[in-house]
């Protein structure tokens, strides 16, 4: 199978990798790079669990060809923050009880981060809209929206 050599930056780390033309970013991240924090819930762009930031824009990695990420910066939940240096969204999700089974959490926080990066003080409706591509079957969304809104209110206008 013909492969193409590309260069990506994953959570700040520069990586050179050979990929096939039809390979999805989700496959590359999970199967080749061990980034299992990116979840596969449906494989066809319905659920949002595989969302990552591609040059700051939230995309479903299952619908993105890895070739499209050539030269770009990819940020997963692990690149947003970690236990030593948590992002306010991660702290807020933990404290507000916005996490139950947690399978949607990584994608949900990625979508929330993309929103807050472009809109510091979103309304509740704008938050609903921003995460509408991320399915959650456990929480009923209220605590997730609360957690995102809380970070928005905390941030300085």
């Amino acid at each position, binding site marked *: 199978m013909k492969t193409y050599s590309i260069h990506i930056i994953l959570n700040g780390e520069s990586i050179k990798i050979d990929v096939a033309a039809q390979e999805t970013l989700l496959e590359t991240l999970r199967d080749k790079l061990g980034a*299992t*924090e990116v*979840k*596969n*819930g*449906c*494989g*066809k762009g*319905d*659920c949002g*669990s595989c969302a990552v930031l591609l040059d700051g824009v939230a995309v479903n990695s299952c619908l993105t060809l890895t070739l499209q990420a050539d030269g770009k910066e990819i940020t*997963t*939940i*692990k690149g947003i*923050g*970690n*236990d030593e240096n*948590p992002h306010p969204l*991660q*702290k807020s*999700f*933990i*404290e507000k*009880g916005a*996490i*139950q*089974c*947690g*399978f*949607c*959490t*990584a994608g949900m*926080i990625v979508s929330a981060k993309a929103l807050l990066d472009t809109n510091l003080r979103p309304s509740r409706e704008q*938050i*609903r*809209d921003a*995460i*509408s*591509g*991320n*399915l*959650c*079957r*456990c*929480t*009923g*969304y*209220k*605590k*997730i*929206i609360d957690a995102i809104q809380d970070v928005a209110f905390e941030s300085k206008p």
Partner: protein
Amino acid sequence: MSDTKKIETPHKKSFKSVGKPQPRHDARDKAFGYTKYADDLSILGMLYAKVLRSEYAAANILSIDTKKAEKLPGVRAVLTAKDVPNNETITRFGQTHSVGGFEGLYRVLADKKVRFKGEAIALVAAETIAIAEKAVKLIRANYDPLPGVFDPIEAMKPGAYQVGEGKSNVICNYKVRKGDVKKGFSLSDVIVENTYRVPFVDHAYIEPESGVAWTGEDGIINIQASTQVIEHFREIADVLGFPHNKVRVIGTMIGGGFGGKEDITVETYLALLAWKTKKPVKLTFTREESVLSHSKRHPYIMKYRTGATKDGKIMALEAELISDAGGYVYLSPWVLLYSTVGATGPYDIPHVKVDSCTVLTNNTFSSAFRGFGVPQVCFAYESQMDELARLLNLSPLEIRTRNYLRKGKALATGRVLDHYVALPETAEKALEALGKKRRPRSPAEKIGHGIASAMTSYGRMVFLHDTSRSYVGIEMDGSVTVRCGVQDLGGGQASSLAQIAAEELGVPMDDVRVYIADTALTPLAGTTTATRQLYMSGNATLMAAKEVKKRLLEKAAQMLDVVIDDLDLKDRKVLLRRKPGKTISLKNLVRACASDGIPLYKVAQFNAPFRELIDFKKGQGQVFPDFTFGTHAVEVAVDAETGKVQLLRLIACLDVGKAINPLSVEGQLEGGAIQGMGYALMEDVILKNGVTLTPSFSEYLIPTSLDVVDVECIMLESRDGVGPYGAKGVGEPSMVSIAPAIVNAVCDALGVRIFELPVTPEKIVKALKKA
């Protein structure tokens, strides 16, 4: 927006950790992406498995040719029914007490006759997923297609196509008889009679079924999988012909289950392939495969006849319930029993007649789903209540208040309610919170209010003789270890145990580590189903922690020369209740105990009340340990031209007994309510001649953030449940009465009733045209 209210009860106890909203210990790892779910696991040299599934819903398998698949380079095993040591087994869903009667046939891989489309026929293990997929396509299965039967009413008729090998498609019948319904109806001034229908529903957990397996030392088969029941290890061992102690199941954090991961999914396939190949194997279902192959919520057809006097006292209820079990029995008899016992709802009715049956068809099989047969009947009986209220010119609250069961009253099965029954409070508080109707925003917009109440059991049926075990130990530095075979679905099942141990041993919750879900290493705690883990394992953990506490305090009393009653454990110290200054650190106390050889651990077993099987001919006896009572109230806006329903308010008011972690309880009440909303308005697994037309989230729609409202929770605390500190279970009760509350609100808005879920715009427009 949430609100906790105490009901006046004699129970008075102050708490240190329990009752305080606490971030759960598992939330941190999940927020940072550290948690390993089943599909995130990998083992060096691991093979990948794929399943060949039946193309037909009903057919005889004439032959299966696996030669081409076997020859494909990279393929390590191709298995069919003939390779499975004990291919035919019976569904026992992790129970240890045999009750007989309803154990249904189950085949690991289809052999001879196929019963539903998507049934597993062959397994492949190969070096890559791509090779495994290719190999599955190279297997040639020859079928002789059969007509099949897809409607439970048709399946019940004499001469109907037989789904299985038996003489009848009817799996079982139940009856409940109380008083004399004829007399009851003759004493009634009004009678309402309606037929209700509910569809197949998918659990739609976001994590598809997944697991890995490997053969370990001494030939032990290890399976690590996303499951609600690690205790399936016994059935898996039986299939392999292994002794039970040579199959080990380890649970992972589960990405949602809701009953769909209660029956075995990937585990037996993995065990077979790991055993045959002697290599580690991984199997993860695709979303489409998940929808085709795992259980569904049962569709029901429910004929109800309810009679009441002009003062609104219900005199008689007659119900006929038929459920579609799909291709295999699984848990259908038990789900039906829940529906049958629950058919009268939380009402005191003198004359009752319930007849029910569950029937095999060639549809996807039905089994456990949050609420276990109760949401179906609740939709029917709560719709009936509003119809009676309308005829009698009573408010929905009045008719319910006049008929609610109270403590000391008996269900139609003769079971006397011996704990506090908070039904009137839940209804009043929910309605009070709902307040006045808002004004319509356009001429086509109609506003409606609706309520519905329910009683939902928590804990398994008492004739299953349910037990749970938990280990609580204290380490040399004063940190606490809990070991419990609980599976964590994401509802805080493990975390609540940490909170209970922290409460008793006087340490912060962060000092407690909970090790869960390993059949070889953690004391067996039973299934994470039936809203039973807080009740069962919570009590077991409480018993164990109390014993460790007692031993610590005995030693402390000796050291301080006081009596035990003067002592308390708090803030990692032993304190004298009346003399604040004098303390011993927990660490020093532990060291003193260790020097004396005092065992600082305890494995406790909690037994639920054990009862005998109920009399199925009359439906008399006790089925459940206890119930959670609650009411949902909603406000909707309905567009009378387009039929679009918008939910404006959704209030959940339940007596939770005692909220161990209010943050987790709210999480259940909110999430359950929105699942109920999906059931009411959107969700419908459409099957045509056994073919699923909604195999992914593109066709099977569940609520998104744009569809929902912010659920408002009112938690009442009677402290009169049978769980730890008087807690009740909330996992399932949180979703049961939503759908009828929404449908009642739609009816209030439009003046027409919809008798079939989901209540789609099409159904509303049709009903309005007919009216």
